[in-house]
């Protein structure tokens, strides 16, 4: 990254768990499944690796078994390293750490890890944004502008509903953040925070220790918002495609957008691939009578029915004469013969028996929990 500038990546796996509560019942936001074979954390993690960041800490809080299982040693992201590499940082890592309420407290709990890194900068990222972003120019801009903090944002038209789960910046003509609105009551054209921040490591350490002594825990509220005049917070505009997952509705839409070739071409770049855990499934098999249109199908699927406008994760089975439309079918779900499934999200390992009929609506897809039998 940017010459010899060393950057430490810090990913918050549990931030925003609450916004897709159905999906995070048994997992972290970072391990929510997305796009046929990915988990949300694959995006920030791959982006960091592709930007030359070779040392990443993943901060977890609760429900992290699936996350640990997914990340393992970090090999799939090329992060099983002797120098740097992937570090999983659960709470209670040392005597002073425990359940945390915000990013600052979480960082305080792992402050020794941050301290021991020989990186000059730290990139903080959550797991709620699907995008393919190169962090190199952010570091360049940060150094050039002499900012204390660089915050990544995107221009977007948002609804009242989305604003309730967002942080919106006011930015002046020099690109400096002058205003920070957390969960504002607004809608329309906004500069929305993508929850990615670059900050000098020493400065971050100072802030974290100082805030801990004052019992301040929220990076957004107690640092960005409270000290926006005191610190130089510069904005970095992300121009590429992104999808921010803040509800089951936006989760559904973002998945469906992956069916657009134009969108996929912006996410899955040959030079900056999105990595994920490999499961060694056989190729997908299409039987006699299969009919598949406008869908993403992962390896290990066996399709004997009709699939339209849908996303099938690895190892899904679709029985004869079953019709799946507008749905997200997660890993190892089995759909029986002559089923009719429309506007449905099934979590992992759901079994829908023969002749069942499940219908949600475009605005409110029906969610079926992990391991359910219908």
């Amino acid at each position, binding site marked *: 990254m940017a010459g010899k500038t060393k950057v430490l990546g810090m990913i918050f796996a549990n931030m925003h768990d609450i916004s897709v509560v159905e999906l995070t019942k048994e997992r972290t936001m970072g391990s929510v499944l997305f796009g046929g074979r990915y988990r949300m954390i694959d995006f920030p993690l791959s982006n960091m690796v592709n930007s030359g960041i070779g040392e990443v800490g993943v901060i977890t809080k609760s429900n992290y078994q699936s996350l640990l299982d997914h990340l393992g040693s970090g090999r*799939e992201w090329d992060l099983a390293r002797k120098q740097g590499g992937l570090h999983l940082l659960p709470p209670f890592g040392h005597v002073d750490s425990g359940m945390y309420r915000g990013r600052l407290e979480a960082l305080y709990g792992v402050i020794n890890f941050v301290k021991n890194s020989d990186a000059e900068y730290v990139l903080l990222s959550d797991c709620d944004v699907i995008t393919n972003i190169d962090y190199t120019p952010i570091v360049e801009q940060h150094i050039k502008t002499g900012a204390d903090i660089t915050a990544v944002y995107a221009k977007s038209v948002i609804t009242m509903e989305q604003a309730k789960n967002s942080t919106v910046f006011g930015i002046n003509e020099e690109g400096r953040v002058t205003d920070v609105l957390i969960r504002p009551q607004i809608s329309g054209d906004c500069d929305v925070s993508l929850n990615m921040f670059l900050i000098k490591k020493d400065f971050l350490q100072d802030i974290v220790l100082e805030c801990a002594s004052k019992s301040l825990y929220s990076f957004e509220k107690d640092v960005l918002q409270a000290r926006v005049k005191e610190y130089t917070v510069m904005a970095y505009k992300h121009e590429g495609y992104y999808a921010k997952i803040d509800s089951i509705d936006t989760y559904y839409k973002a998945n469906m957008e992956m069916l657009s070739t134009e969108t996929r071409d912006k996410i899955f770049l040959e030079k900056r691939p999105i990595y994920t855990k490999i499961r*060694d499934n056989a190729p997908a098999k299409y*039987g006699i009578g299969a009919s598949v249109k406008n*869908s993403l199908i992962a390896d290990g699927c066996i399709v004997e029915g009709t699939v339209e406008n849908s996303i099938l994760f690895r190892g899904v089975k679709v029985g004869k004469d079953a019709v799946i439309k507008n749905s997200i079918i997660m890993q190892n779900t089995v759909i029986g013969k002559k089923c009719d499934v429309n506007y449905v999200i099934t979590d992992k390992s759901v079994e829908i028996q023969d002749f069942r009929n499940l219908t949600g609506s475009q605005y409110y897809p029906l969610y079926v929990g992990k391991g359910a039998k219908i």
Partner: protein
Amino acid sequence: MYTKKECVAMLLAGGQGSRLYALTQDMAKPAVSYGGKYRIIDFPLSNCINSGIDTVGVLTQYQPLVLHDYIGNGQPWDLDKIHGGAHALPPFQTALGAQWYKGTANAIYQNINFVDRYDPDYVVILSGDHIYKMDYSKMLAYHKEKNADATIAVQEVTLEEATRLGIMICDENMGITDFEEKPAKPRSTLASMGIYIFTWKKLRQYLIDNENNPEEDKDFGKAIIPNMLNAGEKLVAYPFEGYWRDVGTIDSLWEANMDLLNPNIPLDLYDPDWKIYSRTANMPPQYVGSSAKIENSMISEGAVVNGNVDFSIIFPGVTIEAGATVRDSIIMPGSVIKAGAVVEYAIVGEECVIGEYATIGARPESVTDKDSWGVAVIGHNLTVSEGKKIAPKENVTENV
């Protein structure tokens, strides 16, 4: 310090595979793609780790670049071990000079030191050109139970097939009494599958004796097995009933791929208890477009299909444009089939571009002279220009 291993596998992967013509111009046969996301060598390597054999020497010689890259440190097969693991073993120079592997037996002979490091009781000899799922631990148990010096896996074949294979003549206890290579009048229908287990001490001595006898072929089938038989060693046949195919020719490679689409053929790649592992490129899921029509096919990740696909095997990263048709064919990784092209009864190698409205191969019923029909093959990294017609049975090795 090396940990003792009960059994070490030696995988013969140095063969050229000249009967695969265009497909093995620049890669060894075991590296040839098979089954939608695999390479042939994935099968013996996965069988090893699934059978509990974690030390595998892979003997390479012909065009090893792709193969060596592919095996790497053996990680995809869980063969990156502190003790044991996968080791690529190309020929090397010694104080006495350098020589190529002169045959299957000589290849093992030259690597006696490699095997000795693990001080194994048994060695299993495998070849890198067969598609099958087999539990070698069962064969090893059989070898021990029979108190054999060598055990050869055999499969029941038809009398006609027997004339083209190495045939074992056995007594009622499966003891091998005689051995015939491609007999005109077979005395048995038990064909050798090219899978051997030897008691290492015995084999080690036979390899040394074979090397010291300049008159002899340096080959298992031609020298080691007959020598052991003549000396009265205990050789037994291990009958194997599962799916097993040699994929040494274009036709057999094509057929073995098509077998995956036949529900009556017992080769299940979806069995979670016996996974076949491979090194994959970590691509997004396959996208099937609105104008696509796919039936009876296997398709892998990263493929984008907007055309028609029927009875075909499509590898990772393949693009099939709208209006293109692929039938009864195998399209290897990264190739592009442009709009309006028709590919029938063909194997298209890796990273090829088949131009718009080109025609590759044809159905058998469309030709009058049946002898001129066969599977058409396009080698790797080639471009077939727009509207070009490639006849059945043709082997394309340069851009046309």
